[in-house]
């Protein structure tokens, strides 16, 4: 540990203060292109040239470490500005044409038929044998790893599947990049040796471009730009370095005041073990640079925000960021993600997770009622149950006792879909997250559920069949509910993992106007989050007032579970508590969240307090 930290300082490049290790060549690039006010940094981590197998392209080792069917134009990008523009010129006619076609069709502004405008220019590009690495830079591992160093193969996707898909998708990426270049030129923005720092101002067109994917080589800078990272950094200059010094001090003094350190340490090697940049070669004694960076970012964060400290899933957020930007930027992006986009989600009590899952459930109920019937909690169906005295009915009790599926979807939010979808899909989501903010996470979640529908429909006969069976009756239908709950869980968990083509998700849902879920916007999500968190808080308070206390005593070793467990507990407890549960639920259910264009606004029911007070008096 100590050695690692010391070596961190030794690799300080001096002026940049970022803890980056630059090759001489990169430093040259930095000097050449710095001049726009930003500390110029390579869009991807420059550490990897240390890897024996990524020796050829020092400046952009990840993205060239292969996979991109490197066109002559693409190779030109690396060799210098001069040939870059040449490459552009040769393609600009096609590009201009394609773009005009796009802009002439207003129906495409919010989606429309993507295939159309993709097809418009798909055949004209002169690309050498696609999917093949350039002959000059043979990468021993390129057969097994993608352009970011991730293993192509997964449990659900074979290498062959990947290669077949990539042959097309890589073409798509190249086409998109050309379009971006045209857009940049039109906006008068410099491409800075294929590492632009500034991007066009916000517009519907830009949003569409972002949704179709930011060029991989530009991602780090684009995310940083759209998330207003520089603003954050400017306000906090020097903080990251101070945090690292603090970390060193703590490690030297060997105080035990860093409980997160051990936990972080244990997750370092469990962050992208399938990615070459995170793997330790057998002959290496020292941790790979990427792991060292990851350690520093996570420890610095835990010192910066003790309220969160370290929460599993942040290792994946930081890890992915580090593949696209330097440490200091990755650190601030992690700060931005955990505060602006996912407030409270990584806090010690994980309440933000519960709130977001409540919001997601409300959204599914509102926008995808056809899906809601599969994940609707069982308590709602007990409305018709004979043996259930409590009225934990249809209302909003699922906001307190979240349906089981939320244990699957919680990780979607915590890790921003890292590991949920194959990597290219995750990156597309991140593009949109930083441009459109957190509501996009909900939108994409809804899109995944929507695409699951054909699978879910297959479950229907099971549920109906048993439900209709007069002999089995109530018990039978309950069992089938529990049963299908599992199957729904399995489908929803597995489906996105095999969704190799991100365009499927985007074209079939996000870009389609007829899906009402596209009405969901940031304002709605913000409002909904407020509603859910206040409902959950009220529920907690009411429960305390109404004295479900004795159960809490049984459980006090287990205090965290109360929040979620209470709703169900009231169904098992004594009469008085049943009544209390009734009142609480009636009261809270009467405060219904109204989606825009739904049933009006949020109705706050102040009479509940009076009701509850009355109950309390009676009880006393």
């Amino acid at each position, binding site marked *: 540990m100590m050695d690692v930290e010391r070596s961190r300082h030794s690799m300080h490049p001096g002026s940049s203060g970022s803890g980056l290790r630059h090759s001489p060549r990169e430093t040259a690039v930095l000097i050449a292109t710095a001049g726009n006010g930003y500390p110029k940094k390579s869009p991807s981590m420059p550490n990897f040239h240390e890897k024996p197998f990524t020796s050829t392209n020092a400046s952009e080792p990840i993205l060239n470490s292969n996979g991109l069917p490197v066109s002559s134009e693409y190779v030109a990008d690396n060799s210098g500005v001069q040939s870059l523009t040449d490459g552009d010129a040769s393609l600009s006619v096609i590009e201009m044409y394609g773009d005009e076609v796009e802009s002439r069709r207003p129906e495409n502004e919010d989606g429309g038929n993507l295939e159309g405008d993709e097809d418009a220019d798909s055949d004209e590009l002169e690309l050498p044998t696609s999917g093949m690495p350039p002959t000059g830079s043979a990468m021993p591992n390129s057969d097994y790893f993608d352009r970011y160093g991730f293993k192509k193969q997964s449990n659900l996707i074979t290498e062959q599947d990947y290669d077949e898909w990539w042959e097309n998708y890589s073409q798509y990426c190249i086409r998109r990049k050309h379009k971006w270049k045209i857009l940049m030129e039109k906006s008068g923005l410099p491409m800075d040796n294929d590492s632009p720092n500034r991007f066009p101002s916000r517009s519907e067109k830009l949003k569409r471009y972002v949704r179709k994917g930011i060029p991989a080589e530009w991602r780090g800078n684009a995310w940083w730009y759209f998330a207003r990272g520089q603003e954050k950094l400017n306000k906090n200059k020097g903080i990251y370095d101070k945090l690292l010094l603090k970390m060193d001090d703590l490690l030297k003094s060997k105080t035990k005041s860093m409980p997160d350190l051990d936990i972080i340490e244990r997750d370092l090697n469990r962050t992208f073990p399938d990615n070459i940049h995170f793997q330790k070669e057998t002959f290496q004694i020292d941790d790979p640079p990427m792991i060292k960076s990851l350690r520093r970012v996570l420890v610095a964060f835990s010192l910066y925000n003790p309220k969160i400290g370290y929460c599993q899933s942040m290792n994946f957020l930081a890890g992915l960021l580090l593949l696209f930007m330097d440490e200091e930027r990755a650190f601030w992006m992690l700060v931005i993600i955990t505060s602006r986009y996912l407030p409270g989600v990584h806090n010690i009590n994980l309440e933000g997770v519960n709130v977001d899952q409540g919001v997601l459930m409300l959204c599914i109920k509102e926008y995808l009622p056809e899906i809601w019937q599969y994940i609707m909690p069982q308590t709602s169906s007990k409305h018709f149950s004979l043996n259930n005295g409590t009225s934990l009915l249809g209302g909003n009790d699922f906001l307190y006792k979240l349906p089981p599926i939320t244990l699957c979807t919680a*990780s979607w939010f915590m890790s921003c879909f890292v590991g949920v979808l194959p990597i290219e899909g995750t990156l597309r989501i991140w593009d949109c997250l930083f441009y459109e903010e957190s509501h996009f996470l909900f939108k994409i979640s809804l899109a995944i559920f929507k695409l699951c529908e054909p699978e879910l429909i297959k479950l229907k006969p099971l549920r109906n069949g048993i439900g209709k069976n007069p002999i089995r009756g109530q018990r039978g239908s309950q069992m089938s509910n529990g049963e299908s709950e*599992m199957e729904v869980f399995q489908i929803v968990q597995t489906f996105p993992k095999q969704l190799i083509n991100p365009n499927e998700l985007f074209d079939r849902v996000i870009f389609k106007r007829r899906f009402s879920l596209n009405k969901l916007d940031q304002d709605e999500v913000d409002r909904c989050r407020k509603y859910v968190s206040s409902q959950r808080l009220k529920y907690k308070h009411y429960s305390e007032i109404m004295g479900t206390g004795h159960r809490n005593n049984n459980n006090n070793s287990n205090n965290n*579970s109360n929040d979620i467990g209470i709703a169900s507990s009231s169904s098992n407890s004594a009469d008085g508590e049943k009544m209390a549960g009734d009142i609480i639920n009636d009261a809270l259910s009467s405060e219904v969240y109204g989606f825009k264009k739904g049933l009006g606004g949020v109705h706050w029911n102040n009479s509940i307090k009076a009701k509850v007070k009355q109950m309390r008096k009676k009880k006393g």
Partner: protein
Amino acid sequence: MSSARSGKSLTKYKIVFLGEQGVGKTSLITRFMYDTFDDHYQATIGIDFLSKTMYLDDKTIRLQLWDTAGQERFRSLIPSYIRDSRVAIVVYDITKRKSFEFIDKWIEDVKNERGEENVILCIVGNKSDLSDERQVSTEEGETKAKVLGAKIFMETSTKAGYNVKNLFKRIAKSLPEFQESPNTGVKDDSNENNAGVIDITTNEEEQQASSCQC
């Protein structure tokens, strides 16, 4: 609950894996499911769900395996899903005393949710191949298992593939017996007592089905 279903399909049992982060829960499941091992598995966030069909004697059962995130703050998310599991496997790492001390908390969670009688508790000391780094002796593990009322205690090595199959075999064997005596306070000994009406029905169906096939 979810463990039983109508005769035509397999009896399903929910098994939840608990324990501190990095002790080898995912690794244990992977060894059992695919008989493979990697040095590092991606950290589990939230819960992963897998199911596997198991043949034992003349019976076939379906195990639903719930892999959980180990970090302490995730405990708050998990309890409601422990509620209806038949088996709770609490894993510790024999080279990390802290992970051994931590199992009390997990067991407490299980007992709070499920009651002592309704769940088969298993305690598993993993990484037994790393004997040089051992911090918890086998005897200590056994003692603790007894104190905590765990029905099964085992040391495993997912790396060497040691005892993993045995573990699941033992769990499976204890299942039907356990089902038949849900209220008789089974703890350390496996009683083959009387009947829970519900479960016997499914067992009979199960047996009939298998005898027909023979």
